[in-house]
């Protein structure tokens, strides 16, 4: 899915207040980090039950707590409230979760899941195969605002169901109280990854057959939403699901989020011990925590799950010229871009994040200034760096939005491309306008492209961003409007291929095509940095990004005293 280089930068304080506060900083405000709040017992002591985990985010749950519609900040709560048939283990492999096991039949066209017996949902009902089918039909119904529905187009009967010509999704078949089969139109070895996403996670019967945003979230996950737990725009409180199918879990009594909290406020509250775990620190604060020997062991640098690049519209001048695209790919000094947020960015020279493709032998794109000038010459627009003459004479419109770090990376790209005779004019718009224009065929020549893995497989990048099938005149995720029959063929074959080594070879060739044809100049990968208090244990990053605290337990020193004082220490 799309990702934004998250920086909680929506303007808030007035200029006068800001000036006063900020002027105070250089005049001697203490910027030393405090000690982490200690743990009562050692790290290797057994997990303890109880306590409330306090979190905060700059955002809000705009897409609700519903697996059928959730995106962005909603994914963390959704992950806790809704369990799926499958999930990831610590090595990012797909393993059974609500399912006891599954089998693949019919040459890869049928995935048959046998559910665990006795899984109790938040409403007290037992999970059955009917719930799985109903939830899938609810999520994929044409009236549901599901941004991921197209991922499931390979389920037999999807087309008729999505078009409203069928009442039921024919490809999801209940074969017994605890057995459900997914029949696919063609074999797809990535299907378990799709089920590990949140979209088709089973919901309680109270969710009904059709989507409604007035529904109280209810699933089979480790935490449940109490009736007054979500104060929209303010906070969310999830409490332990007493009937959770994994005995003894979860360890926490509750998880609480505070919304719309700016990064600075989050850092201050984290330092005071009012937040237990922080993810959305500014880069400066991240650097401080990483540099501090007391805090460094409590920080978690997650794997890159997002890719960023300069998307060039291959249907618009000058990027309909392959050599100019290659010049762009060679002219951008990615190490310079990385310096914008060094604690969370890593240099990217090909289409896949390092979590998926860490192969030093793979020759992708890279900064090569003489080569960039040569490409400009081959394109027919030679540029003389001494006199500054030549190159593409017209300014090239670069679309960006004023949120996150795009504004900074765009200015560096602007500097780099000016050195090869490509003059960018930055066109700053709102995020919604950015999406509309970027995804329209004839609206913008160049923009920053980004994508966050939905599941840990190259198809999560290749299919939505670079295949011909992903092109649309409006709402096109293929923002380069890139079409290459050979690339399409490789991507399609990889879906069918069950042999991991063969798939990798197919993806390698596809990746090489993208690096050479340069619909994007791939620039950097992005990862999260989480820092926790010393008493927070059991935190493990999720393979594709959402904040997963399902295994967390707390062991705060002085907690007994705190309880006696009625929480007065917090």
């Amino acid at each position, binding site marked *: 899915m799309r990702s934004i280089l998250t920086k909680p930068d929506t303007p808030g304080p007035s200029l006068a207040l800001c000036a006063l*506060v900020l002027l105070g900083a250089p005049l001697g405000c203490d910027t030393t980090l405090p000690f982490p709040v200690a743990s009562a017992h050692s790290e290797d002591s057994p997990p303890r039950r109880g306590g409330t985990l306090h979190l905060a985010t700059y955002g809000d749950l705009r897409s609700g707590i519903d697996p059928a519609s959730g995106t962005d900040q909603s994914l963390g709560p959704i992950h806790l409230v809704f369990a799926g048939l499958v999930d990831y283990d610590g090595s990012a492999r797909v393993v059974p979760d609500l399912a006891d096991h599954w089998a693949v039949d019919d040459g890869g066209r049928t995935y048959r899941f046998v559910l665990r017996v006795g899984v109790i949902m938040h409403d007290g009902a037992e999970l059955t195969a009917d719930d799985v089918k109903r939830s899938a039909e609810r999520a994929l119904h044409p009236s549901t605002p599901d941004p991921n529905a197209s991922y499931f187009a390979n389920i037999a009967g999807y087309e008729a169901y999505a078009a409203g010509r069928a009442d039921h999704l024919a490809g999801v078949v209940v074969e017994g109280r605890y057995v459900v089969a997914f029949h696919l139109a063609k074999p797809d070895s990535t299907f378990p990854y799709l089920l590990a996403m949140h979209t088709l996670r089973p919901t309680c019967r109270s969710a009904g057959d059709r989507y409604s945003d007035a529904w109280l979230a209810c699933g089979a996950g480790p935490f449940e939403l109490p009736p007054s737990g979500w104060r929209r725009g303010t906070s969310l409180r999830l409490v332990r699901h007493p009937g959770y199918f994994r005995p003894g879990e979860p360890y926490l009594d509750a998880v609480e989020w505070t919304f719309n909290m700016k990064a600075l406020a989050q850092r201050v509250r984290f330092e005071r011990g009012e937040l237990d775990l922080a993810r959305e620190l500014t880069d400066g604060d991240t650097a401080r925590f990483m540099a501090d020997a007391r805090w460094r062991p409590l920080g978690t640098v997650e794997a890159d799950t997002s890719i960023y690049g300069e998307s060039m519209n291959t249907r618009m001048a000058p990027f309909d010229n392959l050599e100019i695209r290659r010049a762009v790919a060679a002219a951008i000094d990615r190490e310079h871009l990385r*310096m914008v947020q060094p604690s969370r960015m890593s240099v990217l020279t090909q289409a896949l994040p390092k979590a998926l493709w860490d192969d030093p032998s793979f020759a992708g794109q890279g900064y090569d200034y003489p080569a960039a000038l040569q490409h400009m010459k081959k394109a027919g627009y030679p540029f003389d760096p001494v006199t500054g003459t030549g190159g593409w004479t017209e300014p090239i419109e670069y679309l960006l939005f004023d949120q996150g770090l795009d504004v900074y990376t765009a*200015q560096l790209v602007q500097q780099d491309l000016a050195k090869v005779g490509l003059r960018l004019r930055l066109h700053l718009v709102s995020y919604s306008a950015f999406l509309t224009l970027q995804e329209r065929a004839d609206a913008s020549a160049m923009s920053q492209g980004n994508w966050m893995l939905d599941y840990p497989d190259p198809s999560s990048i290749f299919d939505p961003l670079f295949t011909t099938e992903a092109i649309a005149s409006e709402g096109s995720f293929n923002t380069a409007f890139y079409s290459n029959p050979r690339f399409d063929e490789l991507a399609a074959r990889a879906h069918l291929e069950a042999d991991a080594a063969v798939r990798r070879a197919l993806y390698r060739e596809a990746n090489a095509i993208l690096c050479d044809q340069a619909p994007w100049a791939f620039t950097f990968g992005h990862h999260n940095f989480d820092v926790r208090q010393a008493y927070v244990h059991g935190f493990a990053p999720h393979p594709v990004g959402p904040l997963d605290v399902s295994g967390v337990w707390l062991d705060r020193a002085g907690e007994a005293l705190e309880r006696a004082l009625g929480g007065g220490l917090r």
Partner: protein
Amino acid sequence: MLDAPARTRFARNRSALAGAAVVALLVAFALVGPLLASHGALESDFARGVAPDAMPVGPSAAFPLGADRIFRDVFARLAVAGRLSLLVAVSATLIASAIGAFVGIVAGYYEGTRQHLPWPAAVGLVGALGAVASGCTRLAIGALIAGTTASLLRRFGGPRLDVDGLLMRTVDVMLAFPFLLLVMAIGAALDRTSAVTLFVILGATGWMGIARVLRARTMQVRSLDYVAASRALGQPPGSVMFKHVLPNVAGPLIVSATVLVAQMIVADSVLSYLGLGIAPPTPTWGRMLFEGQDYYSTAPWLVAAPATAILLAVWGFNMLGEGLRDAIDPHEA
């Protein structure tokens, strides 16, 4: 405007002198600063601008005010931003002063009477507004036809209007909108913001205070003997207003305009801070403040520099305006 006693009063006013000095220094900094800087305002320096911890370097010989988060010279950017801020603020103030003076003098001159509208002026104003508002020629033509028709009607004793009431109610309506909210709404509606659109927006929405001040002053001036004599001699109203009223309200106009420059600097900074100003990479004080706020604990110069510039500019123009007011009209001091 500033006679010898007024100049003496101004010279004895320390606050006013300090304000004038700050304004002069800011203007000098904006003009000369970019020439003194060792880097261009748009140029990143990854060789000298990066500290060992990969953060921007702090104030040093090469970067007198430190480097920003993409390692550009804050000193050079501050000076270039100063040029822009002062240009926008002064231009917007000139526009606001022109509109405010026109409205205030006309309203004050006709206060308490019902007049045939000064059609040529009204048509000119409506036509100009029509042209500014999205270049809609139909509106301008419509205004022209309406004006001409009304002029013909006037010849036959057409309707009389309370000119003062009409103008002041317009001022009231515009003042009812929070100034910054109005400016932000217009700024957000524009696809692109340039320095020209910025000062036109600020000028077109910031004239009401001046109009009110000059209306009150005009009401005093119009009853003076020489103004009454001019009217008695048959001098047209426009001529009386321009030749006799305007010079006598110039003092308050200059004072109001000077203070308004400070407000325009704040408005320009707010727009930039909110992302509605001039697009990057062009530096503006508000944008620099916005970009630096997340780093106030690790790179405080990123916010201290633009915040100080904004504070000094606003303080300087306010002190200068107050000093001019005290010098020109000591009774109001």
